């Protein structure tokens, strides 16, 4: 429930609403966009980054919190392991049980090979489950993969890797069809026409949705299908290091049973890393919309094995994270809310940015409004945010639209006695997505032979900024591509002895560089929270 003081401020929003309804706020010029990004986007805050001291990306600028993990000792540096004692011996090992891993598993299995999917928490515990907004695909008459390509490149400030973008937009309609065939309940007209809307930075309405549970609907269906097809899944058993063979090719992983605290060896002919992102590292102390398990584990083990990273200095802050109530701080307010017409407003109830700028620009403008311009609204917990005028949605599209199209949002705020049909939401940018990751080709291959990376732990598809709806898309597109390639590739892989030699080399490099603080160990697997600091009780 809003405090009386906040309710007083909401009156200003209500006062200006009739004037704002139906009027269009101008979009920024390219120069204005550059200006707000350079001055206010966290990617440009120098103290948030440092050059990496070890590994193949030595010298690259990466976030402090991630550098800490990469310049750490391995969990198993003091563990005696018998690499000959193999607990799982398969063709394709998939590490990560989100949308990318599940899609890869399905297609790999279709190649007639033995597939094992291991995951840190439950199968389906992933950011995929939380993606509300939608999935892009150019499948309508006024749209084409070529237009989609331009939107992706422009959104990424033309830094994206062209071959990856081409694969993304080309496969997009194929992916929607694949999902439709699996029984995904996309929002459709009675005749089957997809109901599609805009997202930030799209030039066509190509966002496909399943209410505001799009990711959940995709994830639970993929999971159902993986189980139906008899693919082996081992939960609560994260991989903690990769295994290579004597020729330096990926050949398995060391798994850690979270419950029995045992280490187990999984041998495979090809390995797909699908471990997701790193929001739970809370770069620059930002709140995050990410899943509990988003702790960069895949980046750590892949990097130690020598796979090259790209774009690690660019992080996506979603413009609309919940700033109030404190129980849901950082929770994603889906971009679909803005797609349907809700606009950001300052303390005076005035709009200060077009509501559908790209995410980085929108976030930077909100940070500017709250910092330099001091036009934000302060919560009792000391958090500052701006309004997102959700009641506009029902005024624009008719009563009942929020209930029908945003049931998850409506429910999440209703739990704390805020009716988003009648009251605006208070929002502030939240750490949302890791734009960078392992450098891959259009089949998901990394710079290490037989090692693939798909989904959020890969980089280059979105360049320095990802558009809404292209992440659900990329996990399925590249999950399928890697699943296919890794499945076929197994047939020509000749296995030899497993080794952890790469780990010993990395360890030596840490010691020589002086980078490794003696007691720092990674991957961290799960974050450690006590909430005392946030409550002023530390």
């Amino acid at each position: 429930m809003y405090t009386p003081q906040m309710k007083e401020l909401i009156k200003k929003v209500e006062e200006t609403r009739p004037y704002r309804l139906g009027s269009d706020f101008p979009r920024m010029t390219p120069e204005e966009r550059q200006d707000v990004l350079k001055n206010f986007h966290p990617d440009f805050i120098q103290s948030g980054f440092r050059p990496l001291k070890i590994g193949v990306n030595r010298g690259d600028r990466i976030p402090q919190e991630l550098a800490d993990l990469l310049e750490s000792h391995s969990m198993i540096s003091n563990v005696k392991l018998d690499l000959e004692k193999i607990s799982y011996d398969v063709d394709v090992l998939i590490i990560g049980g989100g949308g990318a891993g599940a899609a890869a598993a399905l297609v790999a299995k279709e190649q007639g090979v033995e597939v094992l999917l291991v995951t840190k928490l439950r199968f389906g515990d992933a950011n995929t489950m939380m993606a509300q907004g939608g999935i892009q695909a150019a499948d309508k008459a006024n749209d084409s993969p070529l237009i989609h390509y331009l939107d992706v490149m422009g959104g990424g400030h033309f830094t994206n890797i062209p071959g990856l973008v081409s694969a993304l937009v080309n496969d997009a309609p194929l992916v929607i069809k694949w999902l439709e065939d699996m029984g995904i309940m996309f929002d459709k007209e009675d005749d089957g026409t997809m109901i599609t809307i805009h997202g930030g930075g799209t030039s066509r309405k190509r966002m496909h949705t399943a209410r505001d549970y799009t990711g959940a609907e995709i994830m639970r269906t993929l999971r159902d299908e993986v189980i139906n097809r008899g693919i082996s899944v081992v939960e609560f058993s994260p991989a903690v290091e990769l295994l290579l063979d004597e020729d330096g090719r990926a050949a398995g992983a060391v798994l850690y049973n979270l419950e029995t605290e045992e280490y187990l060896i999984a041998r495979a002919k090809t390995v797909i890393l699908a471990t997701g992102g790193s929001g739970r590292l809370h770069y620059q102390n930002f709140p995050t919309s990410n899943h509990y398990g988003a702790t960069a584990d895949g980046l750590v083990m892949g990097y130690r094995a020598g796979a090259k990273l790209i774009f690690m200095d660019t992080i996506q802050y979603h413009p609309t994270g919940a700033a109030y109530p404190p129980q849901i701080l950082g929770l994603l307010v889906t971009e679909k809310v803005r797609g349907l017409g809700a606009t950001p407003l300052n303390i005076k109830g005035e709009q200060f940015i077009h509501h559908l700028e790209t995410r980085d620009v929108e976030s930077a403008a909100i940070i500017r409004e709250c910092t330099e311009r001091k036009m934000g609204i302060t919560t009792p917990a000391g958090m500052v945010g701006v309004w997102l005028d959700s009641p506009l949605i029902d005024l624009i599209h008719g009563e009942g639209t929020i209930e029908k199209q945003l049931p998850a949002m409506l429910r999440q705020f209703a739990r704390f006695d805020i009716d988003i049909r009648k009251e605006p939401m208070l929002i502030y940018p939240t750490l949302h997505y890791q734009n960078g990751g392992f450098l891959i080709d259009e089949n998901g291959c990394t710079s290490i032979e037989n090692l693939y990376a798909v989904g959020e732990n890969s980089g280059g598809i979105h360049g320095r900024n990802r558009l809404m709806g292209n992440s659900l898309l990329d996990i399925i597109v590249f999950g399928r591509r890697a699943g296919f390639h890794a499945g076929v590739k197994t047939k020509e892989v000749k296995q030899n002895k497993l080794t952890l030699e790469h780990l010993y080399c990395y360890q030596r490099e840490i010691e020589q560089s002086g980078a490794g603080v003696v007691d720092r160990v990674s991957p961290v697997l799960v974050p450690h929270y006590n909430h005392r600091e946030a409550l002023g009780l530390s």
Partner: protein
Amino acid sequence: MNAAEMVDIYVMGKKYTVPASLTIMNAMEFAGYQLKRGCGCRAGFCGACATVYRIAGDYELKVGLACQTKVEHGMYLTQIPFFPALKALYDIESLDPTASAISSYYPEIYRCIGCNSCTKVCPQDLNVMQYIAYAQRGDISRCATESFDCIMCGLCASRCPAHIVQYNVGILARRLYGRHILARSSHLTQRVDEIAGGKYTAGLEALMAAGLEELKVAYNNRDIED
């Protein structure tokens, strides 16, 4: 923030004093837990943190998602992070969207005694018993839409005296509906055919080869659909 108001909660019987403003999940972490089971998206989407609780002095068992429910004084709680439910294996493509498609895999849906425990326990406020009734009647469409917001936390099944696994019935109905009842998208099929026919191959190659300035001009001048 001022000194927080504190309440006593009992995690699996053990007492902890925690700030009253916290959710159950945050309170457990405040108490010192580092969660492995019983914690997922922390946003009410994934169903990992189903929790059963009772307030001291009250006989009623209540439920909620730990990430979405605030603590109360005298709360006795335990999490149900896993439920050993039956999940049928099927080939969705080969099924017909009829009552028998569901009842052949989950015949126990007809054992429902109408106690409504499933509905009362649902943290998503779904009308669970109603969607099972739709399944019994073979009304796949209504079963699918009524169950759509399900997060598969398992609380319904944990309370069902007839041993129905409602959430697995729900996903079967939704997949049948999405696959066999919802109209197929003809514009999608057409685009898929065009891609297979190579209609955009040359265009994409040209875009990949285009220079930065050329791309920027095309991007900045592209028309934007209203």
